[in-house]
Every structure is written in structure tokens, then in C-alpha cells.
């Protein structure tokens, strides 16, 4: 066993099919080119957001702003409802995240460890429903919310977004790995089911709860279709819908659009870097964007 040496070509010394030095350089070049293509638009958003309006309508465009300014940001923050949209997005994302964590972990626990008549059928119904795209029930869902008198309200915005078979599935998988003997032992000790859930189950699946919370927050912050359909008044719009409204009002001020986009992207980018390891661990998540 030799001490691990640093590989100047950044290869994994233990991998059985390592590329040669030339191969490694080719790999690095391909990776740099493809990642630059995906990152460049985000850089361009940031660069334009710092460019004064007069200089955005110039050809060829300035790759690095020659006269960087925060004017666009001041103007975005001065838009009548901008802070209100930020607040609405926060209310939506935080409340959906918290309620989803609570109810999905309860449902996941029930489906994994507390069998009742019809629980298997219910589980398969949840699974089957994941096959149905949200857009397919958009119209009748809107009618239900209209009939309940909840259009253009926080409840109307939030309640339908709480339905999350995927979260239930995820929590059932996490909780299903806990040994049943552990729960039985707690029962023998006289603990009630609610206490077992709170004091035994939840602490053991804390990483799962964190993971669910993070992906739910990001998906909710980025959600667009339902907020677009269910909100009417400017004061009820969320940030993603607001971005489109800003562009409709000021179609020619690209610096303004990009400044608003940067502000809307900032929270999820911060969440991403803060919880990077959860995102990069590769739990089977499927689509994040809703």
C-alpha cells in the first residue's frame, strides 16, 4: 500500500480504467468547454445586470461592463410590488416546505411501518399519480380552487402545492430502512405511536428530512405555472411571475430584466452552495423543476 500520490492529470489513481495523460487532457478540455457553455449564460445575466441601459443596446455587446453600475438593481427594487413578490415567494416556499416535511414524513412512516387496511393500495395510488403530469390537471384543479373561493389567495396558492406523492415515496424509502425491532422495543417500553414517531423515527431520518426540505424549497421557489394561473392581483404574484411582468412592462430594458433575474436566482444559488453535498449525492430524485 503506497501513500496516495498527487496525480498531475487529476485522475483517480485507484480507477481500473484510467485514461493516459493525453486522454486526461482531452477529457479536461471537453469538460471545460461544456461547462463554460452552461455557465456563460449565467455570467452574461450578471454582466448585463451591471450594464447601464444605454450600453446594453450596443453592438457588439460588452463582455465585461465598461461602466458597471447598480442602477438596474435600484430600479428593480423600486418597482412598486417587487418586495411584495419576494415576500409572496418566501411565504409559498417556506410554508410548502415545512408542511411537506411534516405531512410527508407522517405519511411515509404510516406506509412503511404502520400497516392498515388498504395501505398498500393507497401507496400504489400515490405512485400511479406520479405518472400524471401536473399540467394535465391544471384546468380542473383551477375549477376546484375557484369553487372553494380561494383564487388569488395564499391558501389557493399553497394548498394544491402540498400534494406530493414523490415526497411520501422518498420518506417511505428512508423510514423503511429503520429496523422494525427498534420501534417494537420502544412500544414494549410503553411509548405511544406519536412519541415513537417524534423521538425515535424523526431523529434517525434527519438527513432525509433535510434533503426533502432542500429540494422542496428550490422547486417551490422556482415554480411558475400554478402561481401564474391562481394569482390575479399584482400584490399576490410570486417572484417568478413578477419577472415576466417586469419584462412586459419594460420590454426594452434588458439590464433591468437581468438584475431582477439575478435577485430571483440568488436565494437558490445560496441554498445550492450551502447544501452542495445533498445535491451532489445522487439520491434518485428525478425532476427538480416543477
Amino acid at each position: 500500500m503506497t501513500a496516495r500520490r498527487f496525480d498531475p492529470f487529476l485522475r483517480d489513481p485507484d480507477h481500473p480504467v484510467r485514461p493516459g495523460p493525453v486522454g486526461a487532457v482531452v477529457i479536461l478540455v471537453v469538460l471545460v468547454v461544456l461547462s463554460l457553455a452552461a455557465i456563460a449564460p449565467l455570467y452574461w445575466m450578471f454582466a448585463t445586470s451591471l450594464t447601464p441601459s444605454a450600453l446594453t443596446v450596443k453592438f457588439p455587446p460588452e463582455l465585461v461592463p465598461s461602466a458597471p453600475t447598480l442602477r438596474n438593481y435600484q430600479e428593480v427594487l423600486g418597482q412598486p410590488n417587487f418586495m411584495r413578490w419576494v415576500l409572496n415567494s418566501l411565504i409559498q416556499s417556506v410554508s410548502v416546505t415545512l408542511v411537506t416535511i411534516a405531512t410527508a414524513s407522517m405519511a411515509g412512516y404510516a406506509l412503511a411501518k404502520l400497516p392498515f387496511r388498504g395501505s398498500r393500495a393507497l401507496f400504489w395510488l400515490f405512485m400511479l399519480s406520479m405518472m400524471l403530469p401536473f399540467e394535465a390537471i391544471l384546468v380542473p384543479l383551477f375549477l376546484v380552487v375557484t369553487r372553494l373561493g380561494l383564487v388569488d389567495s395564499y391558501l389557493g396558492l399553497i394548498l394544491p402545492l402540498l400534494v406530493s406523492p414523490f415526497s411520501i415515496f422518498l420518506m417511505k424509502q428512508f423510514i423503511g430502512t429503520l429496523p422494525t425491532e427498534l420501534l417494537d422495543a420502544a412500544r414494549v417500553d410503553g411509548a405511544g405511536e406519536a412519541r415513537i414517531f417524534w423521538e425515535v423515527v424523526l431523529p434517525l431520518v434527519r438527513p432525509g428530512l433535510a434533503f426533502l426540505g432542500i429540494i422542496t424549497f428550490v422547486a417551490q421557489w422556482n415554480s411558475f405555472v400554478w402561481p401564474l394561473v391562481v394569482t390575479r392581483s399584482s400584490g399576490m404574484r410570486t417572484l417568478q411571475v413578477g419577472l415576466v411582468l417586469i419584462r412586459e412592462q419594460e420590454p426594452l430594458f434588458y439590464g433591468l430584466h437581468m438584475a431582477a433575474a439575478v435577485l430571483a436566482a440568488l436565494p437558490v444559488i445560496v441554498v445550492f452552495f450551502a447544501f452542495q453535498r445533498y445535491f451532489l449525492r445522487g439520491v434518485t430524485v428525478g425532476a427538480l423543476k416543477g
Partner: protein
Amino acid sequence: MTRGGAARRHVAAWGATFVAPQAVLFAVFFLLPVVIAFVLAFMDVRPTRMTFIGLANFKRVLADPLFGKALTNTAIFTAVVVVFWLGKALLIAYLLDPMNRALQTFFKSAFYLPAVTSSIIISLVWAWIYHPTFGLLNAFIGLFGLKPVAWLGNVDTALASLMAMQIVMGGGSSIVLLSAALARIPRDLYEVALIDGAKRPVIFTKVVLPLIRPTLLYLVVTGTVNTFQVFESVYVMTQGGPQFSTTTVVYRIYQEAFQRFNLGLASAQAIVLFLLTFVLAAVQFRFLGQNVEY
């Protein structure tokens, strides 16, 4: 025995209670809308009354040339995007696999960043990049002496531009999943293949691909179903134009329901969409799911 029965009933009662909040939400905001969709699809919906009209809505959907156009656009979009996006993700994950951890983390983060950024933001940025007069892309191709193109304003380029954006920005979460699948391949399988004198392309097709097949299947199915619902980029960047060249199925449903308030027709369209996604997913499972041994 009776004690055991009582304990089971006790557990069952708690199980039903714990599942209740999600079950109630599911019933009201999912099952009920599904039932309503099926009812509305057979109705002529007017503000004052509803009349049963049988299959007339479905006949109209199938006879509607615009819905046909939307279906074709969506099918092209989905086929191209899924193939290239997954191909790109597989290439990147495979190239990253023999590299060291720090490098893997760095590039996975770089590719993941666009995936946490909302599709509205991505669409706004690319609408600006594609701008016919001041856009970055036209400046870039100008370096090679090419004339500016109205990327989103031209029947021939609009749909392709939307697809290109999706492919360039996509792949983040699939790279992570594929990378995890590659890392799970037992190292001795590679060593056996090397001892047998297998070359790298053979190892890739005979060892790597079969072992990551379940992950690939999962990504193809979820990717197809999700891509088929494309809406945001169309809404922000092209509004379905020019000349309906970027009108997709969900955009068409949105227009019918929320701009023309034609709820019966929109419901029939939604049911067609649902059946199509279901069939697509089932077909993929059938063909790609064979011989999965893992």
C-alpha cells in the same frame, strides 16, 4: 392472539391517522380534479350551464390542425432534447468517472448550477442572448463572418433555438445520478475485462452500459415525461410563434383554458396529453426495461 389483534388494530388506527393529512389533500387537489377532467371532457361548458355532448370535444381535438401541429412540435422537441441531453449527461458522467474527487465535485457543481436556476430565469437570459440586434449569440457568430439571425423570430430556427437552450443548460441532476451509478460498478468487473484483453469501447458497451441501464431507464422515462410538458420557455420566449412553430401541447392547453376559457375542449386536450405520456412511459419501460439484471 386477541392481544396481537388489538395491537394490530392500534397500529392500523395510527397508520390511518398519520397518512390522513396527505390523503385528504390528495383527494381534494388531485383525485377530484382528475374526475372533473374526465367529466368536463364530455361536456360543452358554458358560463351558465353544462351540456353532455359525448365525444364531440375529442373529435374537435383530433380534427384541430393546431393541436396536431402542437403534438408534432412537442414530439420533435422531446425526441431531440432527450437524446442530446441524456447523451451529454452520459458523456460527462463517463468522462468524470476516472478523475479525482475534487475535480468531480467541481464539475458536478458547475453543471448543476443551471439546474437549480428557474426555467423562467433561464428563458429570460436566453431571450436576451438570442436577441436579433443586440444579442450575444449574433455577436459571437459575427466573429466568424456570419450574418445575424432572428433566432426566435424565424419559423426555421425558433423551435431549434428552444431545443438548443434546453440541451446546453440541461443535465445537472442526471450527471449526478449517472455518476453515482458508475461509481457503484464493482471494480473487479473492470479488472476481469482488462485481463480478458477488452479494449475501452468494449468495456463501455459490455460492462458499463448494462450495469447503469436501470438509471438510464429511469432518466429516459422521467426526462421524456417532463420534457413533453414543456411550457415555461415557450411562454416567456416565443408565445408559441412565429406561425405556431413553437406551440407545444401544454401551451395549447393553457391558451384554450386560460385565454379562451374553453374548459371542455381544454380538458379533452389534457386527457389526450395524459394518455400520451402514459403510453410513452409504458413503451419505454417495455423496451428499455428488458434484461435488467442488477
